[in-house]
């Protein structure tokens, strides 16, 4: 059975001396009555779709259906290839890849909702970039996806991953927390450390509103995906450096849910607040939908 909380997940992993991914795989097999081998195969399909969406925008200028965004992943990739970046290749590449998936999504391309389409850039960019740096095999990447989904499962059980319900913190925040937890496990961290990384991520985006310009999953979503990736990688490094989260994962998730519910509806995907109603935001809305 899937654990109901982070605390339960830590206890169960401790008791059976297993990783988060192993327990997640067992729970999924039990719930869905699908063989573990088939689940791993389905997860490999997910990984392959993620790889394509995270790569396409690096080499092609992918433009959104509305025409509002596009080509930023291409610019970032060119920058990485020709200049010395400040934050280093891992961070910059993760940002570029996150932008790529977001642009592919906005152009009606194929992506993996993880947990949502609006936050589809974070998990692929973080896992692929960390996996490359850590020289992980494809099987290990699939395991990392299982870790991420196990952590996401707990968030969705106790809170929400929907922007309309909990704001961007619930979408991009959850995605980044899932990614951070997975990277920590990839780096050999314990389940407690994975959840600490998730908690740190969530704490740092608490209150983040969902305010899409013209109601489209484009502005500021694509850049929030890039920042979510950075947030995840930074939290993973902090935790692997020995930093702990003073607020436990379950508390962070519960805080995120409460904050989400107290956000006015204007700031929950309705495009009636935040950057959506700035002068520029409204001008772009008119450009797309007319006056």
């Amino acid at each position, binding site marked *: 059975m899937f654990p109901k909380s982070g605390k339960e997940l830590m206890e169960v992993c401790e008791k059976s001396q297993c990783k988060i991914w192993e327990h*997640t795989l067992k729970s*999924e097999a039990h*719930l*869905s009555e699908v063989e573990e081998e088939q*689940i791993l195969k*389905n*997860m490999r*399909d*997910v990984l392959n*779709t993620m790889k394509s969406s995270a790569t396409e925008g690096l080499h092609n200028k992918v433009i*959104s*259906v*509305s025409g509002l965004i596009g080509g930023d992943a291409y610019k970032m990739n060119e920058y990485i290839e020709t200049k010395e970046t400040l934050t280093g290749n891992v961070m910059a590449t993760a940002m570029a890849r996150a932008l790529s998936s977001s642009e*592919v*999504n*906005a*152009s*009606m*391309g*194929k*992506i*993996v*909702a*993880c*947990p*949502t*389409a*609006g936050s*589809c850039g974070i*998990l692929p960019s973080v896992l692929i970039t960390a996996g490359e740096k850590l020289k992980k095999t494809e099987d290990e990447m699939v395991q990392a*996806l*299982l870790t*991420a*989904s*196990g952590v*996401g*499962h707990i968030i*969705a*059980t106790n809170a929400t*991953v*929907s922007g*309309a319900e909990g704001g961007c913190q619930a979408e991009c925040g959850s995605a980044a927390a*899932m990614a951070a937890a997975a990277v920590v496990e990839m780096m050999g961290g314990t389940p407690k450390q994975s959840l600490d990384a998730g908690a740190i991520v969530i704490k740092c985006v608490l209150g983040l509103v969902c305010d899409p310009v*013209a*109601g*489209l*999953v*484009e502005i500021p979503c694509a850049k929030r995906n890039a920042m979510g990736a950075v947030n995840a990688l930074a939290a993973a490094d902090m935790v692997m450096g020995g930093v702990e989260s003073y607020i436990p994962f379950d508390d962070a998730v519960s805080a995120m849910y409460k904050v989400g519910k107290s956000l006015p509806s204007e700031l929950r995907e309705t495009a009636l607040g935040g950057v959506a109603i700035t002068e520029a935001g409204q001008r772009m809305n008119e450009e*797309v*939908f007319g006056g």
Partner: protein
Amino acid sequence: MSEFSIFDIVGPIMIGPSSSHTAGAARLGKVARIISGDHIKEVDFLLHGSFGKTYKGHGTDKALVAGILGMDPWDENLRHSFTIAEKKGIKFQFIERDLGDVHPNTVRFILKKENDEMVVIMGSSIGGGNIIITEIDGIPMEFTGSYPTIISVHRDMPGVITQITNAISNENINIAQMKVFREKKGGKAIMIIETDSEINNDIIDSISKVDAVDDVKIINI
């Protein structure tokens, strides 16, 4: 959320940009096509709420047409659905319309078939690519299409339901949930049967043999 899979968290694999406005719309279109049957020549899409306001930017329009063409939410041809529909001679138009006290992402399909028969279906995209069908030909109902589903249309009279469930039991299929909706006593009735296992086409034949049954459709998506 009650019991859900990890593939609801990392997944689905879909065409962007929005699970509710694109993937859900494609699914609604696909289910509408199954209910109405093949040979569709014309579709009016009445779009309510957020669907009506933002369909262009989200590609909801392309996704709906793709669904009508039978495409799945992960089909990369989804963005070309207009051209494909035009090539097949299927006419379509989008009309923003207040459909009343319904979910913000609701669409009413008015489907005209080649024999001029008309089918009206209403449904909503309720988040994460999940959908709910709320009306078929004026009869209010509720089903999601998440389970393999049998939709049978019959005349409301004693004994029909037993005969239909017998036919299903003969195929060794376990019924998970079952609901019956009817226009009026003795009128047209629609039965929605959700099952645990995939349903094959044989079931259509065996249910169709029941006297009062007019139509049987199955959804396996």
